[in-house]
Every structure is written in structure tokens, then in C-alpha cells.
């Protein structure tokens, strides 16, 4: 079993502290949901975990199996098994989806070893079928001209191909209609299992009808203010985030 431990994390962007002492722990085989209102720092958490250069960790730690990842470049974090599905996936003009994925997989092989192209396409097509992605998408430039739903499915395709140990899904449900949401959820559910730990970051409870979390954490003003089981999401849904704001913040560990 592998685990990620986030301990007393403080993160600033352009000298403004966004995350203010966040602690969270999750392990492979678990699905955790982090919910919170806009501006609570949810997306900052995702970006800082992936290693975005604009986010400064001023205090605290993120440990992957006991090893700090804070000094690692984003590519090293990825190769060590951490994946982040972007809320707003980037378009990379002129780089085909297939070449992008091949480069990402090639980066995981030892020097001098070449990715098997036939095997690659077999696997790629299998995952694409699962996510209802048409074959022609392999030749199209990464995310260019993709609809919102196509971009999100493409993120899940990358997740499926890269087989990370930990995946952080940053608002993967935002901007999706119900059919697209179901397809994405189906993809994530296929990937879930004992070998992967998933952190779902979402504003709405809706996604959690399709991907059922083991734990739910509520984030407000840069820290976790409440943790519980999946029923916490439903409680939030009926009472709204104001219900929590009215309460005194309590620091609760994940497990």
C-alpha cells in the first residue's frame, strides 16, 4: 500500500496565502472527495501537488510513501506515479494526442528502451472505446478544438494510459452535461481499485452519485474544516456550504 501525507501545508500565490495549514492523508485503494465553495483553495491544492511553478509552499510537507515531493519537478512527480487531471486542460497545437501519450509513456521507460508501437495503439484504442472517444482523436492536436466534455474525457484517457498510483481529479465534473459526466465516471470507476488512490476535487455533490467516495473532506479558507464518510456530501448538498461557515472550524485528520 502506498500513501500520500499532506501535513500542515501552507501555499502562497503571488504572496497571497491560499492554503493555510491543510492536512490530509490518503492511500491506494481509497477514493477521497475534497469539496468546498469557490475560493476555498481546492484547485490550488491540486496544482501544488502536481508542482505548478507559480505556487509556493511556505510551510508543511507533501510526502509520497514517506518521501517529500516538494523539491521535485512536475515531470518527476508524474513518473513517480502522481497524476493530476486538469480542470482546464491545455491545448498543444500541432502535437497529436497519440504522440503526446507516446512521449509520456516513453518518459517512463529506461534509457535506450523504445515503446512498442503496436502494443501502445492496442491499449490506446481499448481505453478510447471505454471512454467513447472516436479513433480520429489520436491524430488530432492535443485538446485543440475539443469540446469541454471531450477535454475532460481526454484527461481520463491519459489517466487510464499512464496508470498512476495516485490521481488528483480537479473539478473533472465541471462543465459536463449528465451524459458526459456518466462517461467520465464510468472511466474513473474502471480505473479504481486497490492499486490507485484517488482524490476527487469537486464543487458539487453530483459527481459523487456516480463515483462513490470512501471519505469526504470539506475545504474552506485553505484548510480542511470537516471530514467524514460519503453521507457528508449529501448533508452538504441539502444544507449548503454556509452551514459550515456558520460553524467554528475544527481541524480534523482524514482518518
Amino acid at each position: 500500500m502506498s500513501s500520500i501525507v499532506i501535513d500542515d501545508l501552507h501555499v502562497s500565490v503571488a504572496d497571497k496565502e491560499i492554503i493555510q495549514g491543510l492536512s490530509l492523508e490518503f492511500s491506494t485503494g481509497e477514493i477521497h472527495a475534497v469539496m468546498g465553495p469557490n475560493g476555498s483553495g481546492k484547485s490550488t491544492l491540486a496544482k501544488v501537488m502536481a508542482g505548478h511553478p507559480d505556487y509556493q509552499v511556505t510551510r508543511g510537507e507533501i510526502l509520497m510513501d514517506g518521501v517529500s515531493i516538494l523539491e521535485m519537478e512536475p515531470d518527476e512527480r508524474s513518473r513517480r506515479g502522481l497524476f493530476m487531471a486538469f480542470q482546464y486542460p491545455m491545448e498543444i497545437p500541432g502535437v497529436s494526442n497519440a504522440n503526446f501519450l507516446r512521449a509520456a509513456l516513453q518518459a517512463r521507460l529506461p534509457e535506450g528502451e523504445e515503446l512498442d508501437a503496436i502494443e501502445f495503439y492496442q491499449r490506446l484504442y481499448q481505453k478510447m472505446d471505454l471512454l467513447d472517444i472516436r479513433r480520429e482523436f489520436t491524430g488530432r492536436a492535443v485538446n485543440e478544438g475539443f469540446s469541454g466534455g471531450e477535454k475532460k474525457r481526454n484527461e481520463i484517457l491519459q489517466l487510464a494510459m499512464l496508470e498512476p498510483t495516485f490521481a488528483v481529479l480537479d473539478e473533472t465534473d465541471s462543465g459536463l452535461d449528465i451524459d458526459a459526466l456518466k462517461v467520465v465516471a464510468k472511466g474513473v470507476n474502471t480505473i479504481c481499485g486497490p492499486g490507485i488512490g484517488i482524490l476527487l476535487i469537486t464543487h458539487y455533490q453530483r459527481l459523487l452519485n456516480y463515483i462513490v467516495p470512501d471519505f469526504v473532506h470539506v475545504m474552506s479558507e485553505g484548510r480542511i474544516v470537516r471530514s467524514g464518510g460519503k453521507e457528508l456530501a449529501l448533508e452538504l448538498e441539502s444544507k449548503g456550504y454556509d452551514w459550515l461557515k456558520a460553524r467554528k472550524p475544527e481541524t480534523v485528520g482524514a482518518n
Partner: protein
Amino acid sequence: MTSTELSSILSGPRQSPAPDWFRELQAKAWEEFEAEPFPARGNELWRFSSVKNLALDDYVAAPVFSGDPLSLARPRQFPEPAGRMIFANESLVRAELFSPALESAGVIFTTLADALEKHSDRLREHFMAQSARLGSAKFAALHKAVVQAGTFLWIPRGVEVRNPFEVFHLVQGDWAAVFPHTLIIAEDNSQVTMLEHFVSSNPDERGLGCAVNDLVLKPGSKLNYIGVQEWSRNFVSIQVNSTVAQKDSAALNLALNFGGKYSRLESVSRMIQSGARSDMLAISVARDEQEFDQRTLQDHQMPDTTSDLLYKNALHDRSRTIFSGLIKVEPGAHRTDAYQKVRNLLLSDDAEANSMPGLEILADDVRCTHGATSGQVEPEELFYLKSRGINDLSAKRLIARGFLNEVVDRLPEERLSEYLHQQIEARL
């Protein structure tokens, strides 16, 4: 010829067996060459150019090519060309037409020397009929006076050739000067593609490549021309293109620039009848202290004509690029649709990109857009690729390749763009 017998290229027009009109043309061109001043720093057509590279005194006629020129061409060959011609140091090594059907259809794919003998009238009408207007008149005159290695491609009315014709100009020898020439005439409703390679056998040898290509499009024809410039890094390259597009014809010119110390590309498209279209494309990969100097003219002479220019430069190290382009819409050329875009990807803080887009509109009801952008790799794009495990260097390379591939993807023929993707890949 041994090296001791090499003559300076400045010793006068070359004497070759040719019709009188051609000899006279060459003699006159030599006078023009001598009369034209050298490009000077103050000349607007040479603004930003490192004109000090243009001294001609040390160049000599190319010696006999030693070794096997075919092995130099082979790794670059397109898999299924319609015909292939290989010149090594200006001498013809091989000329092949791979389909007998083309011959019986009347396609002419031959050397300039042969065409002077057998198709003198056709040549006389079109050989360098357009003057070089963007600054290189002196070098065009020199080319005219001394040209030897050249290709003449004539596609008869209604004949559509799907596979490209392929021509190699190979050069070897320090200070060798070569003058590759290409004249393509696409008759009414014909279709043709030409892929031309300019290759040095030694990456360090100094030399001069002074090339001219003239594309003539008759009504309803389609002509694609692709030039891959891979001269040595110590070469001075001058390429002068003229495209003349008649009614409802469509020209596409793609220049891939890799080699040369200083490379000047002048490209002029003249839309001389309504419905004509020209796509002008170029990619340049500039490294070390390479300089790519590109000057273009989109000349809309008649109504309802279209031109679309996209030039992309990827600049590494201390390299420089210069782009100066003019869209000219002549009086009466109403409903012109002209587009001009230059994009510079700065992959180093020391690289320098100069862009001078220009418009001159003398007609009404036209749509003209132009723009030049320079920028570094987008940090968010880089982060995205890195977040997938791709390291910094590979990610930048992937972004640069994508940036260039976008131009190649404009080619109408997928096999050709696929082939060019591989060629670019191999040179990045």
C-alpha cells in the same frame, strides 16, 4: 576538372551549348549583375540583414563530386515519387520518370540543358520572366548568367500527377558555388507537386547556393512546391521564388529551412487573374548563430484573388530571423482576400526575431489581415506536458515540433505531410 582548374564564379557568364537567345540572355544578365550594387546596410530591402555575408570573391565553380552522391540522397528520398532527378555539384547523376503513363501523357521532366535544346520556345517564354523585386536582383542576374543545373517540368493540360516529382541538388567542396534552377509550368487544369532538396555533403564546408524557382500556373491548375534547404551551416543561401497564378489556379509553396549560415528567401506570388490563389508557407529552425532572412510579396493584381501566408520560425541559441512581407492589392483588385501571419517561437533568451509586416491596399472591399507574434514557450503548456512525466527539454522540443508541424499540416496530401513530419523530426 581538378581543383586547380576551378574558376572563380566572378570570371564571367558560362559558355554552354545553348540557343543564341539564351546566350544573349546570359551575356546581358552578366552585365546586369556587374551593374547592380551589392546590398548595403542602408537599403530598406536589406534592413536588419547581415549583408557582410554576401561577399562573392572566394567562391569557385563546384568541382567534380567525389564519392557516392546517391547515398546522400537516399535517406531523404520520398518513398514513391513520380520522377526523380539528382544533381551532384551541378552535374546530372540520375534522371528517372517512374511511370510510363506520364511520358505518354506528354509530361516533360528534364534538365534545363535538355529543355534548351528540345523545348526552347517554352523556355524562352518563361525562363526567369519575372524580375526579382525584393532585393536580390544582383544575385538573380548572377544566377541567370551562370546557371547550369536545372529542372524543367511541364505538365500538359488536364494531366493530374498525384505523386511528387523529386529533385536533389547535392554539393561538396569548400567554397563551391551552385545555382540550382527549377521551372515548372502547369497547363490548364493540371495538377503537380515538386519536392526539391538542397543538401551539403559536409556540414562544415563553406559554399554558396543561389537558387531560383519559377512556378507558372495556367487556368485551373494546382501546383505544390516544397523546398527543403539543408545546406551546410557555413553556407550562404539565396533562394528566389516567383509564382504567377492565372485564373482559378492554386499555388502552394512551402519552404523548409534548416541549413545555411545566412539564408535569404525571397518569395513573390502574383495573382494575375481572378480566382487565383497562393498559399505561401515556410518553417525555419534556427540554431547557433544562423540567420534566416525572409522577404515576401503577395501581389493581388485582379479581383477575387486569395493569398494566405504563414511563416513560422523556431529560434534557438543566438540565432536571428528577419521577416519582411507586403500584401499589395492593386487598383481594381476588389474582393481580395489576403492573409499574412508570422510566428516566432523564441527558445532562447539570446535569439532575435525581427518582423516587418506590411499592407498596401489600392482597391475597395478587400479583406486583408496581417500579424506577427513572437513569444516563448507558454509556461502553462510546458507545465501540462511536464505533469505527464515529460522532462523539460523533451517538452520544449515537443512544443516546438508541434508549432512547426502546424504549417506542414496545411499540405493537401497526407502522405507528404507525414513524410515531412519525419524529416523535421530527424532534424530537430
